[in-house]
């Protein structure tokens, strides 16, 4: 177990440096004036150009620039945003609401995805299974911003069941609709994963042996089928936590949430490159952390890993 955790942590190190280097290189090594490109088609206000040059140490060699950038990440110093506020401050404001949004999405995925997936897997080939499989394909196929607009239009504006946009107070009720939209695609994936996993496990030899012991069907399903089937599902949910933060860009943009995604969305459409890079870096870190957590979770869930 200790070895396993240690090895995972060690493997994280090159990935951390590689990913940050990649992001850094993308922005600053591409041909053309990187600073000018960061601003898109809008010309930068006077003075800002020099300010950014100094801030990113563009006069120094690349490797020094990169190391200073990594130092910034590690000391949570992401520089100053377009508005003059430190980027860290923006993040501190943005993260709590996004975390709440992600929790709603995760709950939707877990409850409905696992629930429907279990029923479909147990009744493989039946009507419910076929219907649910087609519906999940459709949900996966519709881009999230289309789902967002349709949900906003139908549920928020026409039926007025839930608030169509999120105001300043950011109540749970306001976050419910964007949370569901955010979790929609992953819900479909969780459903299909659970369904296939349950269906596979159902025909496993050890399940037949459990039945042969004289166990009741509910017990066989809950103790032997579901327990084993949930291993890949739980790990998917873990990885998804990191991915949800990234997916929040579109959802928060549509529903006007001032979270990580919303801030990033605003920064993207206003062409505020420095903020974009800082936020993307942090989100990648969150994603990496989530996948590390997943690995540990995996070791807890599957005894075979613990000793590997």
């Amino acid at each position, binding site marked *: 177990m200790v070895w396993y955790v240690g090895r995972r942590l060690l493997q994280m190190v090159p990935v951390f440096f590689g*990913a940050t280097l990649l992001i850094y290189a993308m922005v600053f090594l591409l041909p*053309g004036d990187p600073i000018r490109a960061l601003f898109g088609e809008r010309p930068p206000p006077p003075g800002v150009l020099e300010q950014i040059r100094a801030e990113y140490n563009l006069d120094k060699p690349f490797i020094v620039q990169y190391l200073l950038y990594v130092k910034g990440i590690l000391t949570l110093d992401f520089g100053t945003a377009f508005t003059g506020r430190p980027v860290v401050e923006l993040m501190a404001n943005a993260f709590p609401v996004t975390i709440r949004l992600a929790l709603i999405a995760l709950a939707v995925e877990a409850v409905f995805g696992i629930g429907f997936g279990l029923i479909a897997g147990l009744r493989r080939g039946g009507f419910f299974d076929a219907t649910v499989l087609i519906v999940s394909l459709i949900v996966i196929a519709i881009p999230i*911003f289309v789902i967002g*607009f349709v949900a906003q239009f139908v549920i928020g504006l026409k039926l007025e069941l839930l608030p169509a946009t999120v105001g300043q107070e950011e109540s749970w009720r306001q976050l419910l609709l964007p949370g569901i939209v955010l979790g929609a695609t992953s819900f479909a994936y969780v459903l299909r994963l659970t369904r296939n996993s349950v269906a596979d496990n159902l025909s496993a030899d050890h399940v037949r042996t459990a039945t042969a012991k004289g166990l009741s069907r509910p017990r066989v399903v809950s103790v032997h089928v579901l327990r084993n089937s949930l291993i890949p599902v739980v790990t998917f949910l873990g990885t998804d936590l990191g991915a949800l933060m*990234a997916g929040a860009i579109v959802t928060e943009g549509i529903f006007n949430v001032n979270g990580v995604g919303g801030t990033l969305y605003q920064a*993207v459409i206003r062409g505020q490159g420095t903020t974009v890079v800082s936020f993307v870096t942090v989100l990648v870190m969150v994603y990496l952390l989530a996948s590390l957590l997943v690995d540990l979770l995996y070791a807890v869930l599957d005894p075979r890993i613990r000793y590997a």
Partner: protein
Amino acid sequence: MPEPLQSKTPRRGQERYVAPPDETPLQATDSLDETAPPASLWGDAWRQLRTRPLFLISSALILLVITVAVAPGLFTDQGPRDCDLANTMQGPRAGHPLGFTQLGCDIYARVIYGARPSVLVGVLATLGTVLIGGTVGALAGFFGGRLDSLLSRVADIFFAIPLILGAIVLMQVSEGRTSLTVAMVLTVFGWPQVARIMRGAVLEVRQAEFITASRALGSSSMSTMLRHAIPNALSPVIVIATVSLGIYIATEATLSFLGIGLHPSIVSWGGDISAAQNQLRVAPQVLLYPAAALSLTVLSFIMLGDAVRDALDPKGRKR
């Protein structure tokens, strides 16, 4: 039950019993049925597919979308940029079945002309990821050892950056923003997924005895990999490529929606949806039609992938 031939221990039900030989004709051991038509692996999969409604519907839709993308002029004589502000937000009328946008453009024509860049991005990005990811995955899986460690770590690094985030950063600094640029950006962050799948499949095939047999014949590693390992590892890659094609189209639309995908001068579904979002309350149809076209296209590719997976997966076939 026929009469027992011998009965030494007459416990009921356990008398000596010999079936009459004609009842169970002894076939020549292990003879080959020469009447059945030959069936290759791919031939079998094709026969399976042909009868699946999911496959028939999705491939018909894909054919339609591709035709529209190649020759939009066949479907409309309106140009996508023939806009007249006098027609702003007008409803459907003869020759303009879907009505007009805020700028007075024909929605139907824009939906038709929006297909090409989307399909182009999907196809190019899929080609790119399969070529790069497939090569890296096959090399890593087949040769293993240090090469595998190196290639897998590099893939991990790209994998650590979610597709949409990486694309946002790269598109921010890209110039031009044509279908090709978007496809290249998607390839940069999409290849590790294909590489992982190819590597896993090749690793599995590598254990097979026909690989050892090929080496024992004196074939070089390279030729064994190309002739035996890769062909047998292709099915999961084909599936993921088909599904990814749909996903790339959706991602391109998302980027265009965020304003950092295709250049605004290119007619695209994502761009049109983005432009229509402000009028969602007054004219939802302006947003709805391109969104429906986009979703249907993505759906067809994902459905096709699903159908192909069922046909190629030997485990699925038993069910």
